[in-house]
């Protein structure tokens, strides 16, 4: 075990690179998963998150760099000799075994092999943990998706691995069940105290369950942090775009310091935003973007009098209205800005009375709500994004 300031570290990547032919799946990646934490690798498909997981499991070997589990290098160690277990995307339950035989599979491989009574007892404990008592003799194909998922979990947890790997475990479930399983997974992780590494493309899944999220793109980690860090302090446009919804106003960075930047839009308008990275200022004259979350934009009737609560204000016309139940989403068009997405809370709607397409409104926001970011989608890769250690 490696001692760090944060405690023991279960999984480490040091400059790990994995290539498939010409394709760079994982690019010089560093990773540190501390013991007992719930970590998510988040990103679009093809970002290298699944490859990273398979590198931990041992199904893939890195072309360069070092993978360590519990402090010991596992490069070249085959999967069956690694103290990790995995929940596969399609569960991969053995169809020729019963539920109990599936769950006990890992125990039966141990040397010396535990006694029959011990295996039965441990399988019973696992069934209780995933609330599937009485399903011992069932065949796996008779189970529902959610039940199969729990069998896969029990099967992976029975050997008490150092790390549990989860490859898009909820992708095959319907929405309601997925939300239930998110809570269940989180509770389970706290109960067993095992380190979880989850791979997902679903930002909601990552945000709701994990202690730490690694947002990946093109085989690299773009930003690492807690759910709040990624949502409130995205370090560039990619992160702000991938995690949650954002309005983006493209322009050029006119002024910049460590606390924020001023961006000149094509329309000539200048907007100020915070610099969430806070460590170094943005490059002047580079492509930049102001990002604002739709729920941070204030919307009110256009009555001529400027509101005191916002720093930036503009008149706009409602183009579209989508009722979401708990919130209402407006698409408004403002001169010099283009389309702006605004989320109005139920409370705000009750005060304003709501708006209809064609209505003229005032929209505005506080400068502290706006983020000034580098636009990596235009300027290529950011030059060595420093990943701030948060928490």
């Amino acid at each position, binding site marked *: 075990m490696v001692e760090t300031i944060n405690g023991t570290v279960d999984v480490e990547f040091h400059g790990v690179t994995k290539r498939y032919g010409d394709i760079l799946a994982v690019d010089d990646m560093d990773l540190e998963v501390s013991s007992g934490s719930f970590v998510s690798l988040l990103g679009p498909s093809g970002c290298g998150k699944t490859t990273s997981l398979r590198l931990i499991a*041992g*199904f893939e070997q890195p072309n360069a760099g070092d993978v360590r589990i519990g402090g010991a290098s596992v490069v070249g160690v085959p999967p069956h000799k690694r103290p990790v277990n995995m929940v*596969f995307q399609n569960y991969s339950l053995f169809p020729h075994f019963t539920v109990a035989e599936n769950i006990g599979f890992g125990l039966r491989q141990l040397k010396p092999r535990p006694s029959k009574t011990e295996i039965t007892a441990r399988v019973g404990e696992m069934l209780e943990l995933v609330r599937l008592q009485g399903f011992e003799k069932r065949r796996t194909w008779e189970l529902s998706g959610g039940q199969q998922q729990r069998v896969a979990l029990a099967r992976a947890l029975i050997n008490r691995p150092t790390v549990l790997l989860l490859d898009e475990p909820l992708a095959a479930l319907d929405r309601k069940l997925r939300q239930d399983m998110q809570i269940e997974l989180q509770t389970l992780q706290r109960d067993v105290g095992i380190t979880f590494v989850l791979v997902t493309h679903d930002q909601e899944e990552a945000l709701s369950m994990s202690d730490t999220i690694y947002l990946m793109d093109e085989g690299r980690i773009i930003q690492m942090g807690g759910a709040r860090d990624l949502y409130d302090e995205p370090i560039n446009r990619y992160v702000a775009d991938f995690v949650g919804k954002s309005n983006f106003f493209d322009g050029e960075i006119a002024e910049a310091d460590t606390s924020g930047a001023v961006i000149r839009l094509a329309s000539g308008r200048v907007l100020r935003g915070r610099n969430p990275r806070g460590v170094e200022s943005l490059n002047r004259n580079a492509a930049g973007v102001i990002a604002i979350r739709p729920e941070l934009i204030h919307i009110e009737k256009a009555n001529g009098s400027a509101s005191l609560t916002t720093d930036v204000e503009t008149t706009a016309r409602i183009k579209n209205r989508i009722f979401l139940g708990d919130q209402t989403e407006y698409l408004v068009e403002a001169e010099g800005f283009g389309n702006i997405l605004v989320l109005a809370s139920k409370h705000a709607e009750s005060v304003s009375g709501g708006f209809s397409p064609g209505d003229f409104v005032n929209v505005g926001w506080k400068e502290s709500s706006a983020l000034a970011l580098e636009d990596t989608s235009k300027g290529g890769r950011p030059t060595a994004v420093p990943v701030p250690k948060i928490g």
Partner: protein
Amino acid sequence: MRLYAAAVYLFLYGPIALIVLFSFNSGRHAASFECCATFWYSRTFNNTFLIEALLNSLLIAGTTAVLATIMGTMASLALQRVKGPLRLIFDALTYIAIIIPGIVIGIATLVALVTAFDILNPWIASLGLGDARSNTLSLGYGSVIAAHTLFTMALVIIIVRARIQGMDRSLIEASADLYATPWATFRQVTFPQIFPAVMAGFLLSFTFSFDDFIIAFFVAGSETTLPIYVFSSIRRGITPETNVIATVVLTVSLTLLIIAQVLTRSRADRGGGKG
């Protein structure tokens, strides 16, 4: 249209049904039917030449099936890891072994074996391992088994590989992930998954080898298999005995083929072939 189909089936299977019926002949001639006796059955099973030929056939078919199944399964497991042009070559070779007419395999095997024996026998004799006058290596059971294994192995490869390709690859990964060694994975996951195909391959190999006349005719040397016996007895005149043999062989072959079919199909219905 329905009548037409019925006529086709009658034409196809009528003669076979007739053979079964004629095997219960009580007369002396195979072609004229006198109802009804199992007399020819008892007579057939008391024919020592025939029983010897039958035992030869069972020995050859059994050994062939075992060898072809083991080697064919191993080959198909290995072939799934072969990629690119090499894979194409092996695929082509496998299909060629099935496509080539039996008579070609028969002649080719005969020529190859005789040539090889001619070269090897003096060597063996000079090493003092065999009798210098009579040849140690000669045509017989071994050569028939070798020739049969050659083409039934290709059958096994094709059947088993289809099953491997239909199998969920992540099951093997899941097994390895759960600390199973490669051998344990094969024993507990891969083999149970491909077992129906292996069994089907075994039964098909057995049937093909048991029924084969052409290849055996070329390479059997002085040994007699059941098809060879039937062929030579026909030349001496057809008795209802031939019908009896045909009926017995038909029953055994059909049973094995049906079992093979059921085995390959049953797993698909049970979610065994997911992914």
